[in-house]
């Protein structure tokens, strides 16, 4: 812990009880104000890709999610401890066993357009997301909503098709930003304009390059935010991004690769931040046709993976080893199961048993970005070779990958960011209707899929815990994915950026209480 001049001034002042008068006589009024003031300054953040749109209904990249987090509010939000806490909604309650959820809105919250946030806005936003014509990418992720009604000016009621225990967490999703009704008429315009109530309002947006937001003086959390402005700038080349950071042209790097992370860590005055979460890459083994329809072949391949080595090689040991299912310890319903350790003998035996004593050849296709996909496939290829797997790795540009490989029932490497709850990622991965079932596993494992449905439909926490634990075991032993590890989110910032906490969902960048010390380059006195 360092003891700065500011701390010194503050502590001596409190001790002597003459802080303000003394400081004022010594330094004059403006200095005294600057010393104790968290307000002011511009925070400059960098990222390397994705800033095409700021339309919350349609954006799909982390940088975009970050920006809309500053411009808008949700009904609920996910704090750094990953708890669902109030945002626009002050309170919420379930009825009919979790099939009906009622949210009470905070009164007097202002939109940037100068009008109060009311229940109608939340209803209109949700209806826009659910309208098939909108083609919102998350229509399937936001929950089994049947209808949304405004009960009165400050009460919104969601009626679901089936009970859903985690529904309030769905309202934290980036897609569920509450947009003022006026903004929903023209979704094209919403791509570059904002109709939010968030801590910052839009100053400038240059798609693909930068977004600048400025303090909204009538924000509902009075006195917040402390920052006058925030810019997010895209540096496509990570080395340039790091040099800009080192030269204090930027104050915070949002997402750093492991090799550049060690450089941030070695820079005096810079804080390297690593937060364990639930982000992972997975090798998808289509289980509806040979060879992977035989669970022994899947298990054999899982036994070839040295997870510790793989994590160290790909993410510099910043992460948590995984058990071939997508639930990390960041989620409430994580079950601690014995970790699978590499065992080539067992792998060979399983292959022989499955009638593949002579070995198996197959191809894994990967998109060129993010690099973790190719890294994982190439390392798996080497690790699995001694057991008799001949893997051919094919690297494709992202557009060809999407059109020809993704969700087409062939082996490839997927990539998933941390979700608000275990349910969200489990449904996405395994459920044939509400998710993708990329592993083509659900038809032969109806019972396991049923577990997931039961677990989300009951409010009984103990029962949910039991069901999720059971499912994690099935997925580990029999599931269609190899998930070797969860990678930590890596970021860097200068020490003069205070009270910034990296969320495991690192795009949930809450900047309301962040402030700059007086020695920050862009802090106005």
């Amino acid at each position: 812990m360092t003891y700065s001049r500011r701390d010194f001034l503050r502590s001596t002042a409190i001790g002597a009880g003459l802080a303000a008068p003394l400081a004022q006589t010594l330094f004059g009024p403006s200095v005294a104000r600057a010393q104790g003031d968290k307000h002011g300054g511009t925070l400059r953040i960098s990222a390397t890709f994705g800033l095409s749109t700021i339309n919350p209904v349609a954006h799909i990249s982390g940088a975009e999610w970050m920006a809309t987090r500053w411009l808008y509010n949700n009904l609920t939000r996910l704090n750094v401890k990953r708890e669902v806490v109030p945002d626009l909604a002050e309170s919420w309650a379930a009825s009919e066993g979790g099939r009906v959820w009622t949210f009470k809105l905070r009164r007097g919250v202002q939109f940037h357009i100068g009008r109060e946030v009311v229940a109608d806005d939340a209803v209109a936003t949700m209806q826009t997301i659910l309208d098939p014509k909108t083609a919102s990418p998350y229509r399937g992720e936001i929950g089994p909503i049947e209808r949304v009604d405004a009960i009165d000016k400050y009460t919104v009621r969601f009626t679901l098709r089936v009970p859903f225990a985690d529904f309030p967490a769905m309202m934290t999703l980036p897609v569920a930003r509450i947009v003022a009704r006026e903004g929903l008429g023209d979704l094209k315009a919403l791509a570059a304009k904002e109709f939010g109530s968030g801590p910052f309002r839009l100053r400038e947006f240059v798609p693909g390059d930068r977004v600048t937001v400025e303090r909204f003086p009538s924000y509902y959390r009075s006195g917040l935010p402390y920052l006058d402005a925030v810019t997010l700038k895209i540096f496509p080349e990570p080395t340039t991004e790091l040099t800009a950071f080192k030269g204090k042209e930027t104050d915070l790097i949002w997402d750093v690769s492991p090799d550049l992370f060690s450089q941030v860590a070695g820079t005096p005055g810079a804080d390297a931040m690593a937060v364990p979460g639930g982000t992972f890459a997975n090798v998808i083994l289509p289980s509806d046709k040979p060879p992977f329809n035989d669970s022994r072949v899947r298990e054999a391949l899982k036994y070839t993976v040295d997870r510790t080595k793989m994590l160290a090689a790909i993410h510099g040991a910043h992460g948590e080893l995984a058990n071939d299912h997508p639930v990390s310890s960041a989620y409430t319903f994580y079950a601690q199961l014995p970790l699978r350790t590499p065992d080539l003998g067992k792998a060979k035996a399983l292959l022989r048993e499955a009638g593949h004593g002579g070995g198996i050849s197959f191809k894994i296709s990967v998109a060129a970005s993010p690099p973790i996909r190719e890294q994982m496939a190439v390392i798996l290829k080497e690790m699995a070779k001694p057991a008799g797997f001949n893997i051919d790795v094919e690297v494709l540009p992202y557009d060809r990958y999407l059109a020809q490989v993704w969700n087409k029932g062939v082996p490839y490497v997927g990539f998933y960011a941390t979700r608000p709850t275990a349910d969200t990622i489990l449904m996405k991965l395994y459920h044939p209707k509400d998710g993708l079932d990329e592993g083509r596993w659900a038809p032969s494992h109806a019972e396991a899929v049923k577990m997931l449905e039961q677990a989300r439909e009951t409010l009984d926490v103990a029962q949910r815990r039991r069901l999720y634990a059971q499912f994690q075991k099935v997925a580990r032993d029999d599931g269609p994915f190899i998930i070797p590890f969860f990678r930590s989110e890596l970021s860097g910032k200068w020490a003069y950026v205070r009270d910034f906490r990296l969320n495991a969902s690192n795009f949930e960048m809450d900047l309301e209480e962040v402030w700059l010390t007086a020695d920050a380059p862009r802090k106005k006195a």
Partner: protein
Amino acid sequence: MAFYVARRTLSIALVLVLISLIVFVAIHVLPGSAATLILGEYATPESLRALERDMGLDRPFVLQYAAWMGGVVTGDWGYSLAMKQPVTAIVGLRLRNSALLAGFALVAVALIAVPLGTLAALRRGRWLDLAILTGSYIGISVPEFVTGMVLILVLAGPSLHLFPTGDYAPLAAGLRTWLSHLVLPALTLTLVLLAHVLRQTRSGLVEVLQSAYVRTARLKGATERRVVARHALRNGLLPAVTVIALDLGYLMGGIVVVEEVFAYPGMGRLILYAIQNRDVPLLQVSILIIAATYAFANFAADLAYAWLDPRIRYQ
């Protein structure tokens, strides 16, 4: 002359229409559509269909092209599919940025390459000539991302930090700030392009200096300065003019790597973005602008030829 200009303009227009058709066909041959890329790994068959219908991508190819062409003819350049904004608004800023960078780089190249090339020609075969040639070779041989990176690490690194790493600033931010952002990318491009112009100037001048009329000029007693500046350079520069014209086209759209390294939002990055996102309206306009730049720069070079060498006449 007027007829010549009219004929050239017309043929350029024809070339541009052809290019637009080729781009349109090419992007349809590529796998996937703007809809698949907008929805990414969140797509469902229903949302894909809805989005393709909304963007008119479900119509036959000919109708899509006709609709786009109809728009262009009536002055409607369309909406970017990925950014959902009028193409003109998106392209405007990039075009200005690219023109600015290209302008700076070309002026720097001309100001450095022409005198150095002349010097090399006059000192042909001596060590100065050799030094100039070798230096320019190094500039063109090192890939631009390496040059750019080295300049960033040395001149923008924390130890010196003479210039910002990249990005751009509006003129409103002050002349110094505005200029400081342009220095490193412009310097990189200058180093890369120097050899083209320098060597053309040198070889053009070497040839001219050996010609009969230069000997005549010398024999009639003109000073060496007058011989070079008035007689030789005017003719010797002709090849360099062509190269500068081609470089302009390259600078306006071909410097993707430099724009990426310096996080500079110009036309090159925009075209890459448009291709990666199958953003047909955005791509069409961007490509047409580059093609038009090439065509008109060449045209201008031809006109400059006639001005530099009065023997050249166009009919």
